């Protein structure tokens, strides 16, 4: 479970303070697929970064499965990221000098003892890249690179997968394929999926849709249920936004 308590993020630009997130509170139960949507500059990626421990809030708290990650030392934070979170980025972020197989292996080698070769091969097979394991990123198409990134995100079996515009750089068929793979993981393995997107179609497939505007949650809905309207509305179905 992910819990955010009044998280704020600002940056100091000379004498001026720029508020990026203005007090976010929410709880994401295990296994939920949450889509975070909003216009450019609304604070979506910053929120995702805080949830994943890639950045620290200026104030407020973030708890991941009962662990407060907002004040963890860097090495502990790395361990949390490595064991609990899988990442998928819009621009794939594969290591150019490693093969597809080695890229998938990386999180395993960084965080888990033993050889992850079997899992890595199996996952690449599962995303349809059995024949391309020894290829370097530059030899793969965008869609293929993103599938390698998916396999890399899944290899340590993380309970949470976070994706930042994972289909943003892909054509519609590749985008659909990637989303299907993410959803399949969410449904079959019970992985929590937090996904930032611009695409209404992608957002419509989520269990829950959180809309950000100017650093605040302006809407938090379960698809098919009427929107709650404001961030401090209570939620009977536990999917919740705390005030």
């Amino acid at each position, binding site marked *: 479970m992910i819990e955010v308590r009044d998280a704020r993020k600002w940056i100091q630009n000379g004498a001026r303070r720029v508020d990026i997130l203005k007090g976010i509170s929410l709880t994401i139960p295990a296994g939920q697929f949450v889509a975070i949507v909003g216009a450019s500059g609304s604070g979506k*990626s*910053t929120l995702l*970064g805080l949830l*994943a421990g*890639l*950045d620290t809030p200026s104030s407020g708290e973030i708890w991941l499965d009962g662990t407060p990650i907002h004040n963890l030392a*860097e*090495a502990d934070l*790395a*361990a949390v*990221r*490595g*064991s609990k979170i899988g*990442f998928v*980025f*819009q*621009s794939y*972020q594969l*290591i*150019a*000098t*490693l093969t597809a*197989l*080695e890229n998938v*292996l*990386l*999180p395993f*080698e*960084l*965080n888990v003892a033993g050889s992850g*070769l079997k899992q890595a091969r199996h996952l690449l097979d599962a995303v349809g890249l059995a024949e391309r394991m020894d290829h370097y990123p*530059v030899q793969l198409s965008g869609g293929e690179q993103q599938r390698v990134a998916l396999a*890399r995100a899944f290899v340590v079996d993380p309970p949470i997968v976070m994706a*930042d515009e994972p289909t943003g750089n892909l054509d519609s068929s590749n985008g659909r394929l990637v989303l299907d793979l993410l959803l399949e993981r969410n449904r079959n393995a019970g992985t929590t999926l937090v996904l930032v997107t611009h695409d209404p179609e992608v957002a419509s497939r989520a269990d829950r849709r959180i809309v950000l505007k100017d650093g605040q949650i302006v809407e938090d809905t379960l698809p098919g249920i009427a929107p709650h309207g404001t961030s401090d509305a209570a939620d009977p179905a536990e999917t919740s936004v705390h005030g």
Partner: protein
Amino acid sequence: MAKRALSWKRAAAIGWRDLKSAPGKFGFVVLSVAVGVAALVGVRGFSDSFRRTLSVEARSLMAGDLSARIFRQPTADENAKIAGLLKSGVQTGKQGGGQSTWVVETISMASVPPDPVPVLVTLKAVDAVEYPYYGKAELEPQMTLAQALDGDSAVVAEEFLIRLNARVGQTLRLGGRNFRIAAVLKQEPDRMSAGAGMGPRVMISFAALERTGLLAPGSRAAERLLIKLPIQADPVEARKQIEAILPDAQVVDYREGNPALTQGLDNATAILSLICLVAMVLGAIGVAMAMHAHLEQRMDMLAILKAVGAGSADLLRIFLLQTLGLGLAGGLLGVAAGVGLMEAMPAVFGKLLPVHASLQFPWRSVAAGLGTGLLTTLLFCLPPLLDVRGVRPVLVLRRLVEPGPQGWRSWLASWWARRLQLGIGALVVAALGGIAWALSDSAKVGGWFAFLFAVALLVLLAMAAVTLASLRFLLNRVRLHLPSFMRHGLSNLYRPGNQSAAVMAALGTGVMLILAVFLMQAALLRDLRQTASPKLPNIFLIDVSSDEAAGVKEFFRHQPGITQPLDLMPVVRGRVISLNGKTLDQLAQDKSSHFPRQMLESAEMSWADAPPDGDKLTHGKWWSDANAAELAVGEGVAQRLHVGVGSAVDLDIGGTPRTLKVAAIYRADGQHLGARVTFVLPSGLLKNEPATWYGGAHVDPKQVPALERALFAAYPTVTVINLADVLLRIETVVDEITFVVRFLAGFSIFAGLMILASSIASTRFRRMREAVVLKTLGATRMRIVQTFSVEFSVLGLLAGSVGVVFANLLTRVLLHKLQVGFHIEWTATLVALLGTAVLATATGWIASYRILGLRPLEVLREE
């Protein structure tokens, strides 16, 4: 449409904006230019100042207007002629006005009682009333030389006091007499003309020297005539006259200064300048590589500029100005550092030079350094800059432009497309030859330098490429079995845009230079030490008089530790009048410039009625009559003089002319003294002439000090030269020279490291992204440190290996030419390899500063 072009001003503004965007990367580029310029300005500035000192203080540095050096004592007749010449006013029309004095320089043994251990000293005797005509001998405590050398007094160099633990006021024992140490000799004006010498310097008066009896007839002491000419006298005329009076003398007038020293200085400046040029060219290659990488990264910008209407000429203008700006910035920084380096040069060169140069701002060298730096930078950057012509605006729409046809045709086509760059490459090598020519003042040296340097770089580049390809081949086979950080670090060597092979070749060049100098030095010194085998003499006696010869022989018979008995040989000096009826003047005209005239003017002869020990007869027959009108000649001398058995040799021995016939040709071995003399004569012809005896023996090194002590007590005028001391002295000089060379070669390593730094800085963004992706995936700082450290250190190790292999090959070839054996120096090799790895790792991290501290989100959002 009207033809328009981007103005230079606007191009400069665009170029400057672009430079500001990556200050770190270009900072290293500027440094890599600065390195070579600094080295060149430092070396040439110092050399210029030194030369200026030599010419401004030429008279002082000689202590006279004219100097003539002979290796015998002048005759009364010669002295009378010299006095006559000066009295006549040397054709000035006025009588008198000129002065002359003799200065004697020799070596001897001296001790400070009660300590009986003598040391070898360089002894100089002067007439303190006359000497020096120009300049001043500086003494401590302050006094005049005439005051200090009054009676049996001596002045000594500080080194003497230190070695013998003595002080001013104590007694010095020399040639069987006691001298009072009156003062410390801080500086003597003509120190430079005296040559290197064998030990600490001691100066006494001419009269005192005569009282010691050190100057026996036939002594090899150098006698230097110093002349102060009348004011209007023509030095050229005076010189001619002196040459006529002393035909065997080396005559020099103050305007030439010290020809050997100026020649040596010019040669050293040329060689050191070329070493600096290596650093400079490496720097220029660094700029070219950085520009190439920079343009690759700026493809998008170039395409956009082209899409909005910029032409290739406009882009070329922008980047040409950028390159010139970088070259100028590097050049100016280099000039500043070079002037500082020049100030530090006396500390580096100090011991090698007998004169303290007064340093001035080296305008000429600054111009030379700056000009050379800019020119090399510009030339080397032209090929990558010309690539902007090939950028297609369509890149704006599609990042990957479809590749052309594959196969050898496309390979040929790609080279054909780069024909202009290839042509410029040839021009660059030619220009390099021109610059080397200007720096070394020799077209031949310049040409060879450019050719060999180009070949060496190509070979190093090929070696680097092959090494990298082999490592990759190996890596691809074992990569999944390697620890993750190792695999990742090694894979990074093949990162797009990494230029690993070029970095390795550049860094390898620096390693190769330093190591080759060291290997040569080590091999030559080892050879020198091996020559000192137990069979060969390790102590030499000089200046033994005929009266002492029998006693000294006897003395050696009773000394412990003698492993090879004393070989004592008499030497009588004579003059060759003619060979086969031709006078020396006639011979000098016939023969090449190598005709050994001075050797014949003052020929050394020995006597023996049977071939001496170690001499092997090769032609003819040794005489049986001790008064035969015959002589024997060594094989080498016979070849040089073109004489054989039956040739006629007219000799002047002690004023008596004799015509002798060559009866035998012999070959002397290295173990005896036979090779030391020019002719061997029957004993009857020489026995009654004044002779000096020379000896050699091998003594257990541990027993040498005791022997020296006993011999000095019994025969105070006999000088002993211990080979171990000589070798030590040679090693010290070789060490000092190679230190200077290695110091300057170090600039090439620095240039190589700057290239590495700039290459790493140019892939900085890729590295940053990689580091944060790793962090996102759970990597700790330590893991990132390990990965990058593997990359940097392996790159250093490989560059070191390339340099080590090439240095060994080069040394092997050079030593083969010198007929010296080659051995692999494992310690030096290991130090070179590890040192390069450590330096490369340190440089890599300096160029990657702040990468570790980045937060993932900072970088990932910059997408």
